[in-house]
């Protein structure tokens, strides 16, 4: 009887247990969860200092967002009449509703920041070279998906902050030549922001964009495995200059023979030997647990200390002074507000420059940069390599410019987009009574 129960328990929990090291290694392939990770992993990629674990941090934030988001879904009503009041109820009467919303919001803001810093890290370590360029592209797509996920969620509370951020955000889309108007029409479901816009953004935020993000995330993970792990592995391979082993020509080392090439681990014995590597479980799993804990603590701490704001109900006839886009789009708003150029009779609107040309140019630059980067192979997987000094400086200057513009937008722009130093008072806004 006891044996039967034990057997049943085993079937429910762990249908199979390894009897040798070889079988234990194979378990990685046989188990869905474990196949994310290789059985052995290079020690360098587990260090805190190399990757700063920013990708893992983003992924943990996504987990927190998904969990809090699912709970928020039970209370939110996506209608113009009720959305705002359902948030008020979340804030006031739903048990831990205030915490859920606040944590969700903080995680969303942090995820934009984390994804951006992750991108910066990858650039500075030249981890986008060779076949890794595909993961660089997927990463950029993930970053853009994160931005839109955050922006679409911004609208849902249907307060003044949301309404006017959407007005400005879709105004940027409107600046697109020729098809701008149609894009805006498609986004907000009409010519004015209303119920159809709210429902569209609700759908985007809760189904479409998370689905896109999850799909891209799966691809991102798969590419890391296929590229042989983090880019610091490439560096190790170059450094050890091991005598290459001959690859068995009958083996494809690829999924169903569709994907081409082999990973670094196949062609060198050094990377995964005892000296350089450890078992992914428990070492990688433990470190991920640390990052997950840290992420949870950080979001919870911020949520407790700085609750999510909720302004007045959305009112199309009252413009908040000043009306601002979410912070990660404020550099674009700043450009839009200040870059209208007049050359003779031709006027180039700030909307076109700040809304389309500059971000379009930056994305294009990010896409072609890996091919412009002619630095030697030794740079891959190394922070601030000497031979990449010039391009690192250019890249950091571009990032710095964006950050400066964001800081100006957030802290130094007051009513009517006038410039105010932090020690200057904004004019008092009249109240009703």
């Amino acid at each position: 009887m006891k044996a039967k129960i034990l057997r049943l328990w085993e079937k429910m929990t762990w249908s199979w247990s390894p009897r040798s090291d070889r079988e234990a290694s194979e378990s990685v392939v046989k188990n869905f969860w474990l196949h994310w990770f290789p059985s052995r992993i290079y020690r360098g990629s587990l260090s805190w200092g190399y990757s700063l674990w920013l990708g893992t941090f983003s992924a943990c934030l996504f987990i927190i967002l998904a969990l809090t988001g699912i709970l928020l879904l039970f209370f939110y009503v996506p209608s113009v009449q009720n959305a705002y009041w359902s948030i008020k109820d979340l804030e006031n009467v739903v048990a831990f509703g205030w915490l859920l919303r606040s944590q969700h919001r903080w995680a969303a803001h942090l995820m934009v920041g984390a994804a951006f810093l992750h991108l910066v890290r990858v650039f500075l370590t030249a981890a986008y070279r060779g076949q890794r360029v595909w993961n660089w592209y997927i990463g950029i797509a993930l970053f853009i998906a994160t931005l839109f996920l955050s922006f679409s969620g911004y609208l849902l509370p249907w307060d003044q902050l949301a309404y006017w951020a959407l007005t400005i955000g879709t105004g940027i889309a409107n600046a697109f030549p020729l098809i701008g108007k149609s894009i805006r029409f498609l986004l907000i479901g009409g010519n004015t922001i209303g119920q159809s816009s709210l429902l569209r953004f609700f759908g985007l935020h809760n189904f479409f964009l998370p689905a896109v993000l999850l799909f891209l995330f799966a691809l991102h993970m798969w590419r890391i495995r296929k590229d042989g792990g983090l880019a610091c592995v490439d560096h190790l391979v170059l450094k050890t200059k091991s005598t290459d082993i001959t690859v068995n020509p009958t083996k494809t080392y690829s999924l169903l023979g569709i994907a081409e090439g082999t990973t670094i681990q196949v062609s060198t014995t050094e990377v995964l030997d005892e000296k350089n590597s450890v078992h992914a479980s428990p070492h990688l799993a433990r470190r991920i647990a640390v990052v997950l804990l840290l992420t949870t603590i950080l979001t919870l701490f911020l949520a407790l200390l700085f609750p999510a704001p909720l302004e007045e109900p959305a009112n199309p006839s009252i413009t908040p002074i000043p009306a601002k886009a979410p912070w990660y789009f404020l550099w674009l708003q700043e450009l839009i507000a200040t870059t209208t150029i007049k050359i003779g009779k031709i006027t180039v609107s700030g909307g076109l420059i700040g809304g389309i040309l500059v971000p379009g140019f930056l994305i294009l630059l990010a896409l072609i940069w890996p091919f412009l980067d002619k630095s030697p192979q030794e740079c891959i997987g190394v922070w601030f390599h000497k031979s990449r000094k010039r391009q690192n400086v250019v890249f950091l200057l571009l990032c710095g410019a964006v950050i400066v513009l964001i800081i100006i937008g957030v802290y130094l722009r007051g009513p009517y987009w006038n410039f105010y130093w932090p020690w200057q008072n904004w004019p008092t806004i009249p109240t009703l009574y």
Partner: protein
Amino acid sequence: MILSTNKAFSPLRDFYLISGLSFILFILVVASFYRQSHAEWKKYQKEFVTYLEQNVSPGSVAAFDVSIKQIWLPELNRVDRCPSCHLGYDQSSLKGAPEPFRSHPDIAPHDISKMGCTICHGGQGFALKKKDAHGEIKHWMEPLLGKKMAKKYGFKDEASLIQINCNVCHRRDGETSGMEMINLAKKIITQKSKCQTCHVIDGKGGKQGADLTFVGDKPSERFDFSKIEEKLIAAGNPLSMLSWHFEHFMNSSAVVPESKMPKMDYSEEEAWALAMLMMSWKNFKLPVMLIPKKAAEPLPPGPEGSVSAISSPADRGKTLFESNSCSDCHTIGKGAEIGPDLLGVSEKREANWLKKMIRTPEEMEKTDPIAKKLFLEYKELGMPTARLSEEDAEMIIKYIESFK
């Protein structure tokens, strides 16, 4: 520089890290639970139970249910959670109890269970924290119109400002008891000042001034505070729309230099009353069940029908002169006011010119040189077009001619 080094892994160090972090997480979770369970309203409910135990009846307290108490008003799209702290509002036995447990004064025929609290008092019914609920926060437009607010404006009567909200529903009523300030304002606009000469109210009136029908909904950004901002701040008065209206009634051209509104010489009390009336003119959808039972007072008879066929032309002219608001701006023999004095005007001007001026003044002010000159002379305050027939115009001239 290589940040990635092959440092040996110390599982023990990671173990300490995880333990430490878990402990921090535990503390944060405890803090969350503490905040969730120590709501402000619970404190008041405990105090209320103690108060009942000591002052009312020691036995009856056991039945008290500690919970959020609310008045749900689906027709008004409101939930008023004020009773969560104002626990004795519906118990007449608690008349002398301290706030927030005191019972609400009798306000029959109003039914609190059907109207809730915020519709009259202002504030934020959804909220449960005192500051939020009383609307004394940044992102809530309607604060409580009570003691604090009256003090802010220096009113002696703390119940005066709430009359603004009374009149949101009682707009169409005549004199209403308890609404002294609003009653005063209504008296002024129906008897003393003829606002509709220049302003549209309820779809009727002249077009010289702004439409005032829903002036209470006008957003703050459409008020020009630039001329009075310094004065208000220096005097310690709130920079509010109510203050704006007050200043504007006291001296319109000091607030808006290009204003054509004539000086009305209101007393301060009258100006405050009118300012409050303006704030109350909001587009508010009143559920049928809340419409005040007292029928609206009959409107004064319109121009049609009042012109009797039997009376003399001059008499009919008099009626026309008054019912078409001519007398709001023109006197006959009492000196120029908003418009010129009309005594002996038929000797000064041709009969045809006069008729045209009476029937199509706005056209005349654009084309006729004399009319243009007069228009400029009288602060560019144009004369509104009344729908008058040629015959009507003749009768009005007859009436003017009757003064000699």
